[in-house]
């Protein structure tokens, strides 16, 4: 798909234009980009036919790393790698255990780990301030502490830059032999092993990479909303990430960003239109996508080109 880079550039431009024209959307779009980065990880695992129904734990790890460290080290340029490192570390440890499992067990074990994390974040009140969460205040950007409007632009810019970076990374990875072996896990894992490709190692690498991106996404969410609560680790949050992956379409690294933008916008507009029944609207959108456009937004776009 030669048009992918072109579309990515167009998309990035559209986002910038949107954020410029409608200031309050800048916040929504930053969140969407952050979640899109996390969903890239879901996409990797989906390639291997595995659904992580607990991926919000990596978002939470990233977000809480920022929340815990910010009072002593408010520098965004240090916090981001720190959050990525923590999430990657956990991803490696949990991944070593998880890659032995497939399908429902893989999904449910991810869910279990996420729920353990969620429960601990909620329970260990003395450390985490429980469900109230922790406020992230006074971040600095390369040593400066700009005014709020500038700061919002900086966060948006960082999110967009990282989104492009990780999007490229994932594209390259998926096209590499390692990335193509992922699809082998989905369809014919035993044959993969016959060919001498260690399936577990392939999956582990993807899992750790997905954890890293989850951590970065979570850190961005924390820096943008500047308040972190355990809710970010709850299973419905994980469900939303999978939702976004399918909404955007699993066919391209652009999918997660299309999905996340669509998701956040639908959520905001649904909440504005009918505050009591926004969940129902989101659910209905999801059903319509699955039943009538299983390729997601990306599928719709690429089908239009082919036509």
């Amino acid at each position, binding site marked *: 798909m030669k048009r992918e880079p072109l579309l990515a550039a167009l998309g990035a431009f559209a986002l910038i234009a949107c954020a410029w024209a409608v200031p*309050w959307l800048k916040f929504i779009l930053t969140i969407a980009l952050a979640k899109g980065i996390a969903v890239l990880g879901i996409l990797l695992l989906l390639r291997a036919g595995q659904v992580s129904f607990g991926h919000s734990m990596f978002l939470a790890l990233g977000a809480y790393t920022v929340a815990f460290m910010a009072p002593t080290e408010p520098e965004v340029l240090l916090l981001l790698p720190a959050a990525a490192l923590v999430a990657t570390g956990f991803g490696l440890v949990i991944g070593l255990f998880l890659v032995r499992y497939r399908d429902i067990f893989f999904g449910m074990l991810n869910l279990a780990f996420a729920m353990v994390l969620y429960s601990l974040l*909620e329970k260990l009140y003395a450390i985490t*301030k429980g*469900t*109230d*969460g922790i406020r992230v205040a006074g971040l600095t950007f390369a040593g400066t502490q700009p005014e709020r409007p500038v700061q919002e632009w900086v966060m948006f810019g960082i999110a967009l830059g990282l989104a492009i970076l990780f999007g490229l990374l994932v594209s390259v990875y998926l096209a590499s032999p390692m990335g193509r072996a992922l699809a082998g896990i989905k369809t014919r894992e035993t044959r993969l092993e016959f060919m001498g490709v260690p399936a577990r190692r392939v999956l582990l690498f993807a899992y750790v990479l997905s954890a890293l991106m989850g951590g970065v996404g979570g850190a961005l969410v924390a820096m943008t*909303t500047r308040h972190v609560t355990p809710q970010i680790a709850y299973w419905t*949050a994980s469900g939303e990430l999978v939702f976004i992956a399918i909404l955007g379409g699993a066919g391209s690294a652009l999918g997660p960003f299309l999905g996340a933008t669509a998701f956040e916008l639908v959520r*905001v*507009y649904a909440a504005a239109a009918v505050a009591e029944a926004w969940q129902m609207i989101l659910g209905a959108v999801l059903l319509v996508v699955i039943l009538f456009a299983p390729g997601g937004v990306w599928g719709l776009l690429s089908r239009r080109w082919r036509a």
Partner: protein
Amino acid sequence: MTEAVTRRAALLGAGATAGSLLLAGGGAQAQGKPSELRVGITTFLSGSASVFGVPAKQMAELLFEEINKAGGIGGVPVRPFFVDEAPGTDHLVGEFRRLVQNEGVQIVFASISSGSCLACTPLSDEMKKTTLLWDCGTQRIFEEAPHPYAFRTQGYGTPEVLAPLLYLLKHKPDFRTLAVINQDYAWGRDSWELWKAGMDAMKPGVRVVAEMFPRFGATDYSTEVTRLLAARPDVILSTSWGGDLVTLLRQSAERRLFERSTFVLPIAEASMQILGRTMQPGHIIGARGDHWNNHPSPKDPARLKRFVDLYRSKYNEYPIYPCHHMAQAISAMQAAYAKAIAAKGGGWPNDQELANAFRGLTFDSPTSSITLREDGQGLEDQIVGLSSFNQQYPFAVPKDMILFPAAMVSTPVGQKSVDWLKSLKPDFLNQVPAPIAG
């Protein structure tokens, strides 16, 4: 302005709905009297805390309707924009921005949850948008940092815990053991910290036999009830509310825990209607304020009756305390606009002028009147009593009520609640007024 609109519309090329939403905020910055007064209200519309959020929203709609029928505020009709707190803080802070930057609301009523309040108040500082904390109780808000644009139009955790504690010390001075069972979140933890500080200061030596913080929204308390039955504390404190409190009290009633221990329930009021006769008489109940249906001496009895009837006629239920808190915020908003408009000689106030009007404001609540202190905290009296049944209500209401003046049970400006409570002496009890008749 028109150019800007075309630019935005052209850029986004969005559909009709999206377009209207994106452009809706256009007129907000205009000087002079706006065509409508937009009020952003964050409340729980889903999840377990919607037991508070939805009645409050319903009350707000009824009151706004009345206000608009009477010509609005300063001649401007009021229009609420409700936002659901349940999806989480990241969503809520986005919604706060949307309310201010896009919907162009002129004032925000923020939040039931303390977490939501803690997240929204700094935004009110940054965006210089007057924010009324209409229901959350955390003492941290004004004690940790000043918030020039935030005002709490009701009481808060410290008086709401201290008043029942004082009542207990008066009513059952010789208790020796106590157990606490609170919801596991800020209010549950904070209220216990406040209680413990006050109790240890005024009655040292009480043994705490169990400290339980079951998960927020827990659906079963049978194990906890068993443990309380086995531990036999003289007093059981629970600041729980909503479905959690209803479940706890029903299971306690069924298993005769009420016969073994005296309950202290600072937030019982909102659950009494649901519990009906299941609630047992003779236990200490509070209301996060003075707004009991059987308030013995409301400032204006006719107003309280009108208020209750307004809600009852529509929903066939008595209004619960979040309805009162919502009414207090609306009443404060009316009073502040009147004050600000008068100060400006009939002109419409800007953000700064509006905020100025709130400082030191006194406004009427359905039962009494409330004054906002210089730090933004409202002074709301507290009434605590013993649960009892009478002919008039099919649910428990307090008797032997004590009205605690807000100034007496609130932490003085500039002090931290826990430190202040620790500094109380047993003779503080002498200040407690005598029970009121009724």
